[in-house]
């Protein structure tokens, strides 16, 4: 998150005018800025705007109704509510200014300090920061009130210190983020002072987040300040919004409506500060905000162009599959008319570089495209049924039971909060409807089958307690636990160590033969293809450019792209040297 802010903020918010423009082009930001500007102007020119001095008493206008010179009526002492509101803006903003200045200066400075020096100093400062944050600030301000004197300004100064941790954390995290970046290292090596570079860079990057934080802190400050004044703290002779609320509260049973105006003034001012902060934040996050799907034109799914029945012995046939994701300009197709055929008991390699659409094709077969993704046209015939547009409920009955999935990254694909055992048995209990005890027995057998030296220990372990290779075996065990007809493995060995890769591939091949499963193996590695696949489809830019038997493809690649990929592999020696246990040669 921090790095995203850095990347986004430097280019898009370079220069003051860019930031200002970005706020003003946002409708809510414009309204907020206008309101806030109005409040500031009112505060500055209070004597010109207010028809009465804030302390002018007219005894016959105690709790008077609006009118007769008193625009909003009179308060409990017969003073003009409108005039006091105008002067109140001034005093309220001064208090907020004090809090904001103190908290930002203290917070940013200490954050720079802690982030730069790190180590023990950072620990101590962070401890202080945490300690400050764990104190109920209003209670502390109340406790300090007598010794701070009746001036609310000193209380707001103390409050500024109590709010400094927000700025502190922000700055420290930014410094820690850039401290080890390459250009800082380079500068250090060439003998430049890295402190200067870091401070220079930070002050550039931190501007937008600090403005957001300032808006938020100013809002909190106004609320707390009014709260203290409402409680009767501070100099009651000075007109403030909180003090006015106190007066209205005292007269609430006489004129209940008098509580309205001061509260409204506080709320509107604070709301414009929040909206301003939101406008800046929106601007910062513009790049990574998901595009609103509801605005997309609804596309009717084109009927399958080929309707002839699937040939005998074919488990899965994908015809002209098109998958798209919504973008601002319309649907962006990531899979552009893919056709594949998979026979029962066959292993099909789906090969291509990253971004070629192979993983999206796999997700489409599972009905698990990422948010917004849709099958725009084409059909997926699984066991003689088109599942391309199956309702989610029907699709769910296929998943796990008939179509299973092995992901690429083993560690992130196990739920960190549950034991392996639970994660293995849950699908069996859900999908097969067997008892928990029976599922446990089967899970232990499976764990032994996939090569766990101590199945029981793995069963009781949490994911973070096992290695990546073991985690991948667990995921394979889970995928085959319900005897699926089709296993879709998405780069199942890419994230593993080279030695472990070979073992996991052997396991997959043995299991495939044992259970006579059909397998789609998504990979970018021709070594893996040669090792395990019967046939292979090569993908490029969302299309299949070549499909052939493995031996023929390796012997005589037809498409230039295939030749290029194979050439790239031949140049690359290291991934090809492992010796599979079964003794099968690489080019078998």
């Amino acid at each position, binding site marked *: 998150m921090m790095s995203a802010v850095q990347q986004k903020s430097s280019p898009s918010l370079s220069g003051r005018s860019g930031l200002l423009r970005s706020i003003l082009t946002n409708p809510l930001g414009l309204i907020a800025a206008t309101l806030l500007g109005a409040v500031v102007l009112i505060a500055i020119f209070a004597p010109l705007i207010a028809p009465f001095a804030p302390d002018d008493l007219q005894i016959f206008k105690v709790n008077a109704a609006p009118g007769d010179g008193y625009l909003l009526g009179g308060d409990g002492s017969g003073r003009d509510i409108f005039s006091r509101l105008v002067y109140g803006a001034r005093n309220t903003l001064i208090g907020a200014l004090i809090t904001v200045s103190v908290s930002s200066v203290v917070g940013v400075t200490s954050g720079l300090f802690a982030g730069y020096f790190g180590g023990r100093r950072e620990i101590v400062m962070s401890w202080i920061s945490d300690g400050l944050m764990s*104190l109920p600030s209003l209670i502390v301000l109340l406790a300090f009130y007598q010794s701070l004197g009746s001036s609310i300004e000193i209380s707001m100064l103390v409050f500024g210190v109590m709010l400094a941790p927000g700025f502190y954390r922000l700055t420290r995290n930014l410094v820690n983020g850039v401290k080890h970046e390459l250009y800082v290292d380079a500068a250090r090596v060439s003998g430049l002072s890295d402190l200067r570079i870091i401070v220079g860079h930070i002050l550039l990057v931190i501007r937008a987040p600090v403005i957001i934080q300032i808006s938020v802190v100013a809002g909190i400050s106004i609320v707390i300040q*009014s709260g203290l004044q409402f409680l009767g703290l501070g100099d009651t002779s000075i007109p403030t919004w909180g003090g006015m609320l106190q007066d209205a509260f005292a007269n609430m049973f006489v004129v209940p409506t008098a509580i309205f105006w001061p509260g409204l003034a506080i709320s509107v001012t604070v709301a414009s500060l929040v909206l301003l902060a939101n406008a800046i934040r929106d601007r910062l996050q513009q790049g990574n905000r998901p595009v609103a799907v509801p605005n997309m034109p609804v596309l009717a799914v084109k009927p399958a162009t080929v309707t002839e029945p699937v040939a005998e012995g074919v488990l899965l046939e994908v015809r002209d599959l098109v998958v798209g994701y919504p973008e601002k300009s319309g649907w962006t197709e990531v899979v552009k008319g893919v056709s594949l055929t998979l026979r029962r008991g066959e292993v099909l390699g789906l090969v291509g570089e990253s971004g070629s659409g192979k993983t999206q094709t796999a997700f489409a077969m*599972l009905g698990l495209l990422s948010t917004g993704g849709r099958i725009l046209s084409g059909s997926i015939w699984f066991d003689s049924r088109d599942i391309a547009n199956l309702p989610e409920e029907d699709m769910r009955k296929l998943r796990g039971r008939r179509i299973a999935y092995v992901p690429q990254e083993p560690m*992130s694909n196990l739920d*960190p*909060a549950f034991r392996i055992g639970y994660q293995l048995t849950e699908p069996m209990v859900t999908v097969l409807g067997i008892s928990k005890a029976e599922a446990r027995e089967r899970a232990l057998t499976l764990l032994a089958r996939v090569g766990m030296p101590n199945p029981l220990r793995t069963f009781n372990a949490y994911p973070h307690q096992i290695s990546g290779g073991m985690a991948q075996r667990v995921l394979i065990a889970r995928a085959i636990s319900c005897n699926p007809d089709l296993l879709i493995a998405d780069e199942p060995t890419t994230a593993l160590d080279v030695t472990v890769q070979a073992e996991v591939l052997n396991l997959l091949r043995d299991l495939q033969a044992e259970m006579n499963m059909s397998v789609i193996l998504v990979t970018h590695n021709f070594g893996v293809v040669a090792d395990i696949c019967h046939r292979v489809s090569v993908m490029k830019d969302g299309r299949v450019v070549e499909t052939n038997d493995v031996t023929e493809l390796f012997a005589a690649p037809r498409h230039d792209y295939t030749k290029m990929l194979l050439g790239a592999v031949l140049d690359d020696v290291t991934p090809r040297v492992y010796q599979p246990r079964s003794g099968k040669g690489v080019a078998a």
Partner: protein
Amino acid sequence: MLRYVSKRVLSSLILLVLVTTLTFAMVFGGADNVAQNILGENATDAQIAALETKLGIDRPLYVQYADWVVHAVEGDFGQSWTMGESVSRIVSGRLIVTLSMVTVAVFTIGIVASLLGITAAVKGGWADRAIQVLSVVGFSLPNFWLGLILVVVFALNLRWFPATGYVDFSTSPIGWAAALTLPVAALVLSGIASASQQVRGAMIDALRQDYVRTLRAGGIKPSSVLFRHALRNAMPAALTVLSVQFIALLGGAAIIERVFAIPGLGSVTVQAALSGDVPVLMGVVVTMIILVVLVNILIDLANAWVNPKVRL
């Protein structure tokens, strides 16, 4: 676990000592005019000197502090200067009232924010917009103003609830609930606003994890994916928000108790602050810090229970 708790308690003790020392220096150091304040404008110098001797504030500050610490360790926080009772009696009697209000508020925030945040994360739509609006409204409406509006509308005009006062739960559960409804409503709005945003974010993060897709690929029921797996992983963030909210509520209670004339710890703090009743203030600060520390430890333990990666 034991190591964690002892480490945590030690760190909290240091915090407690630091804050109380600082507070003591501030409040006792600033207690110059206390005798004058208590006795009024017409007091003679001799009367003031006599009272200062009686209260012990004529002694050097460090002597007063040592004296205070020695007694405080035994649970004796001295005698209130203005309320004619011992500080421990005042604090313990009022604490229950405030705790009952804050506890109801925390649970209300937790439940409403979870429902709203989860709905927004899963469905978006109205819940998303509600959270967006709430985040601005909840932040901008000061709770005491909201409280006043609620009193005017629901107590003075509609007469559904009492405007002020507090009824013990043991006296009348219904009366207790009626007395607390408006104060709690005023207290929770901003908490719901910020907590529901956090829950929404944590749920969205959890639902984006790779294992969620893999669970779905394994045929796991959507309800289990959502409420068993994603929710459990989103829980630490939500619990942390609740601990922040608890601290905010302790401060908020001070003002809200004043609005609704609830005899809790908050209103006694205000009273002591205005009258310069230093021993009571010290008692309140110590109590508050211990409360915050206890709640934080509880939340950490809950987090460790939810998330096996956190080793205590």
